[in-house]
């Protein structure tokens, strides 16, 4: 019997396939379907700091707009008594998910500042989340802000959250650090139990007809696996944290590569959004078949087997540019 189990953030998972933060977790029915198809854990969609703040400010703005200006219309909208804002909906959904499925559910928070919003980490823990994925990325536009300052704020944020909660925290990173290994180490030192590589960002497009910048979400493809694959391979065994690979996981082969590079889990969203939850079963079946065919006993056996530390030619991971190198030369060296 092939052993697909793995561990991630202290959680024992039945296999290494995790649904990454996406709309897949918005509905309980979808989550249940994922569980039925065999997914090992679910990372919930992100609760965004920016969204929490904007939602509140927007609601206030539009409810206040034009009020107490004109004698016949002190306001323009009724007082509905209470509003359920997105953090409350989030916590509510989390609780519903926890009740509906037996697999671990990981909460996801997205933000950068250490403001009042981080209390939602605690609320997620109280609501029964098994762990927290902290998604930190700030697009710096201020040219006075140095990389060091920004990095320090990330570390401080992880530190603050670590102090406020007891459950495991994974930090989802962007690939855009000057020195990723150093950053990874500092985040782990600040309290991260795991690192998720990498976040994919919304990138705006330009509409040539209207001359407007337009929002545009493109789903990933397998080619995008390369970037996180390299860094998982590089970090495996160097940082004291679990590693999750996300971005570009679409096939059984992608999952295998992630494991061999050193990931504890492989996360997927685009593929499942495109093909539906049942795709999980196909990939898991493929995984098992491949392992049987190639006589692997367990996932643990292959995890990190092709990390930089484990391969015969570690430099292969270090080259940033394509160069023709005589294979004999590296041997001589």
């Amino acid at each position, binding site marked *: 019997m092939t052993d697909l189990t793995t561990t991630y953030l202290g959680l024992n998972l039945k296999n290494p396939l995790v649904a990454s933060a996406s709309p897949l977790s918005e509905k309980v029915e979808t989550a249940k379907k994922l569980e039925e198809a065999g997914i090992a854990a679910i990372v919930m969609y992100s609760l965004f700091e920016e969204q929490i703040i904007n939602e509140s*400010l927007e609601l206030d703005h539009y409810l206040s*707009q*034009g009020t107490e200006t004109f004698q016949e*219309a002190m306001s323009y909208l009724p007082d*509905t008594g209470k509003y*359920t*804002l997105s953090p409350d909906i989030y916590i509510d959904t989390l609780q519903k998910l926890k009740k509906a499925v037996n697999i671990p559910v990981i909460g996801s928070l997205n933000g950068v500042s250490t403001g009042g919003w981080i209390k939602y980490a605690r609320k997620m823990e109280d609501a029964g989340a098994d762990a927290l994925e902290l998604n930190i990325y700030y697009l710096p536009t201020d040219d006075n802000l140095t990389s060091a300052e920004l990095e320090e704020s990330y570390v401080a944020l992880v530190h603050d959250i670590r102090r406020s909660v007891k459950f495991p925290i994974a930090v989802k990173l962007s690939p855009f650090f000057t020195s990723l290994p150093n950053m990874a180490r500092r985040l782990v030192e600040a309290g991260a139990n795991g690192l998720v590589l990498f976040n994919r960002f919304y990138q705006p497009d330009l509409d040539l007809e209207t001359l407007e910048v337009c929002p545009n979400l493109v789903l990933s493809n397998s080619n995008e696996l390369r970037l996180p694959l390299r860094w998982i391979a590089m970090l495996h065994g160097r940082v004291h944290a679990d590693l999750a690979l996300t971005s570009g996981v679409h096939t059984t082969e992608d999952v295998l590569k992630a494991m061999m590079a050193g990931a504890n889990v492989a996360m997927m969203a685009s593929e499942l959004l495109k093909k539906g939850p049942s795709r999980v079963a196909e990939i898991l079946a493929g995984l098992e078949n491949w392992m049987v065919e190639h006589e692997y006993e367990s996932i643990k056996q292959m995890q990190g087997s092709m990390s930089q530390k484990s391969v015969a030619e570690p430099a292969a991971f270090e080259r940033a540019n394509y160069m023709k190198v005589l294979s004999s030369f590296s041997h001589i060296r």
Partner: protein
Amino acid sequence: MTKRMANLDGNEATAYIAHKTSEVIAIYPITPSSTMGEFADEWSAQKRPNLWGTVPLVIEMQSEGGAAGAVHGALQAGALTTTFTASQGLLLMIPNMYKIAGELTSTVFHVSARSIAAQALSIFGDHSDVMSVRQTGFAMLASCSVQEAHDFALIATAATLESRIPFLHFFDGFRTSAEVNKIEMINDDVIRAMVSDELVQKHRARALSPEHPYIRGTAQNPDVYFQARETVNPFYAATPAIVQNAMDQFYRLTGRKYSLFYYVGAPDAERVIVAMGSGAETAYETAKYLNARGEKVGVLVVRLYRPFSVAHFAQALPSSVKTVAVLDRTKEPGAAGEPLYLDVVNALVESRRMDINVIGGRYGLSSKEFTPAMVKGIFDEMKKAEPKNHFTIGINDDVSQTSLAFDPAFNIESDATVRCLFWGLGADGTVGANKNSIKIIGEETDNFAQGYFVYDSKKSGGITISHLRFGPEPIRSPYLISHAQFVACHQFNFLEKYDVLKSAMTGGTFLLNSTYDSDEVWNHIPAETQKTIIEKKLKFYVINAYNVAKATGMGTRINTIMQTCFFAISGVLPREEAIEQIKKSIKKTYGKRGEAVVQKNFEAVDQTLANLYEVTVPAQVTSVVNRLPAVPDQAPEFVKNVLGRIIGLDGDNIPVSAFPVDGTYPSGTTQWEKRNISLEVPEWVPSLCIQCGKCVFVCPHAVIRGKVYDSKELANAPAAFKSMESKWKEFPGKYTIQIAPEDCTGCALCVEVCPAKDKSQVGRKSLNMVPQPPIREQERTNWEFFQSIPEVDRSQINTRQVKNIQLMEPLFEFSGACTGCGETPYIKLLTQLFGDRTMIANATGCSSIYGANLPTTPYTVNRDGRGPSWSNSLFEDNAEFGLGMRLTIDKQNEYAREILPSLASVVGEELVAALLNADQSNETGIKAQRERVALLKQRLAGTNEAKAKDLASIADMLVRKSVWILGGDGWAYDIGYGGLDHVLASGRNVNLLVLDTEVYSNTGGQASKSTPRAAVAKFAAQGKGISKKDLGLLAMSYGYIYVARVAMGASDQQTLTAFLEAEAYNGPSVIIAYSHCIAHGIDMRKGLDQQKMAVTSGYWPLYRYNPVLALEGKNPLTLDSKEPTVALKDYVYNETRYQMLVKSDEERAQDLLKLAEQDARSRWEYYKQLAAMSYGKENH
């Protein structure tokens, strides 16, 4: 039992009891009673139960007439039923009130008493409405204060159940309905003790039921009607005692003592004022003050006005009285006296007190201030041997000489009461912050507090003045503050416009929000203000609240900052405690909107004190700046002497003689009121302009104009005047887009719609918003020059192209509508196209308020002196009103045509023929006919023949006229629908323009039958569960009505075509125009985008139904929009009215959205089928 104190206004205090003691509540919005209905609806939506544990059923009706009918029916079926109304609404209830009273049915109508439209509409308080129903058989109980409104709502409920006489419980609109005061709340035990279950059950037992059927509402003949009418007398005779008993029971339960007629004053008073409502409070306070100074005066407060108990009245009046002055807050022209006066005269006669000299007078109409000084003036008059009867007080009646003199400086207010005035800008949060301050003071200290708020009649950019009193004693003073220890001015530029410190007391404090620092502010304030500060020895503080607001993300909302300053300076509470309480109230007010809002307000509070400075006041006036005149010197005399004084807040002092006697006012007066309300205005970049004119087309305030002209005109142009080569083949020369900088409200719709982008910097367009102050002077000069350039000859313009509309002069400009209003561009367009020959009938609502609320009116005239005539009759009858105009035009046109041939010898055969056979289908034809009519008049002037004179008086009717009937959806879908349907069905040539905002916008966004499913509105706080009525489809069903549905933001061309076709159609037409609105909770700058989304999502299909096509054998319906391309949710969830349902009840929101999607889909499919039907010949 512990007392529960609360700070609330009269409407809430009343609605609280009404909701507790009702099973069915039928409502309809009308100022100032709307909020009672809103509270009832919100509480029921929140499942708040009544006294018996069930949630009252609240239903909005199509009119007050409908509400009264529903109330009548609900009562007949046995429910405890109530309604709320005022003014015209109460008048619409009269027929049912007779029935309800005639049938001895227990109910209470709660009325915030308001003026009735006569020479003008007024939303403010007096007793004109309630006095108009005194004959219906309802008992009438008058509350004088917020506490009484709360208490009497219950006493009336108890009394109606026992007496079987229906009650009208009323209190003064605005003064009591909107005054916030600290009152003691009645707890449920008291309500339960007052409202006997046994009587409730008896009420039910009297109901109609098929289980024990009987007939009520018969028709009777001369033999019996009279006798049957007299059967009720014993019930009326018993009612005064029943009410007094209820008051006595209430006293035992609460300790608050009331009587039918309450006398206060010297026991041996010789002069007594009789009054009712809040004015009686003022008289009461003043009498006590005068008593303390030895004057033998008193006040008799009338609480139960109907049934009028002569016995109780006589008993309450001291025997020492020699003169009585009866005050009526109403006017009954032609009567021997006003109603209360006549009742008192009668009561004195019947009680054999003919020794008393009685005079009567009018006061306080339309919330006119009624002050202790006026009361003193009346008491002084009563000392005279021959006091003036039928007097007025509070105005200067220099026509009929009715007014009494008084000394405005007379002041009775105690030093123990702190009085504060706050001048704010609408929507800056000043009022809200002051309401919170009252709550803080009222709830967190032992002080009593009172707040009253005065607003502008403009819908944006207007002033608010908050009047706050607090002190150790209950505050009764129902009049504005005239001696304030603290004055705050939250807008620096108010100093240039108003005498902000007029009411400041010597030694008081002045707080100013200033962009200038404490060491430089002095020389920036007008000399007049400096003089007052010095003379009154005011302590002067400044804060740059805008800086603090900006730094803390508050934007332009400076409320909490100024509130913090107020507490810090006034010392009502120790600073630390005050800040803690402010924060507590912020949390309470904004908490449910999310943490971020609370935090931002906290930060604003925290940063305030470091920015608050005291200014060292110099001994001398040094400023070279002066307060500006309200209107420029070149304004016409009437504008300067009347309208200008209203603008300058001096309207109270204008004498009667200055006013038109019949409510007729000149057009074109907004041009004199330079409001300067926007800090940003658009600036034109000619090099990018493609001259499309879309900016001019969409501008809600007609502040951006386009013109082509001969290049010679530029000879005297100001240096900064911009122009470019004209792109019109038919109008070569120069072209200019010009902005009226002082009239622009800064909505930026023009910038949004501008399609011309800079290819090297796409964010820059041909129009861009820039700061106004630096270009104000320059652009004012340019605007004046632009206006001096001749208009293009209208007869040469091809009006079918959107581009050309910019060349047509708008005759509707600078209205006081909201910034970015979605309605006004349509009205402006109609005045551009047909304004010089248009008669407008305007339903009451937003369009009548920004259309004609004094001081100024936006309808204007062209260079020939022609322009739209405009009038407003009522809310409910506008279609009929407009039809009447058409009937006159048609009749007089017909008559003129009839007599014209008989005058051929005077007029000339050729001219007669030309006049009778004129083709007036276009501007050229109309122009030619006008010239003929001018010639006709000339020729007729030469003869004395009676017929010739007759013809001359109606000769203008030979020129084609256009009748436009305007109003919102509240009118068209609800209250006026019956008339609208009839007028459309009449086949007459009228044009109806429905400005569809999908809510009653003017009264604050109550649902109408136009409100779409899934949207939240007032009176539909749970989200509207049923779909929008399809008014267009109903109209199409007649077959001979031109119908169009338009949305300017989706297709300006289709809008234009619809207007032209509707007007050209010789029959009834209706245009339903999507009008984005502030009540939708949208970014008004994106209003046109929302219009477009409404269309592309399939929610608002564009179409034209032209019966002319059917006559040609073609399908009359043309669908002008394409298959939906956008999901409905992408359109609706851009709007707070939909979003808030998701936040308040997500499940219901989802269900309703699904249904709304179905609505849109099936409507689209249905129209598609209709448009595809064969009418015999192929479609065009």
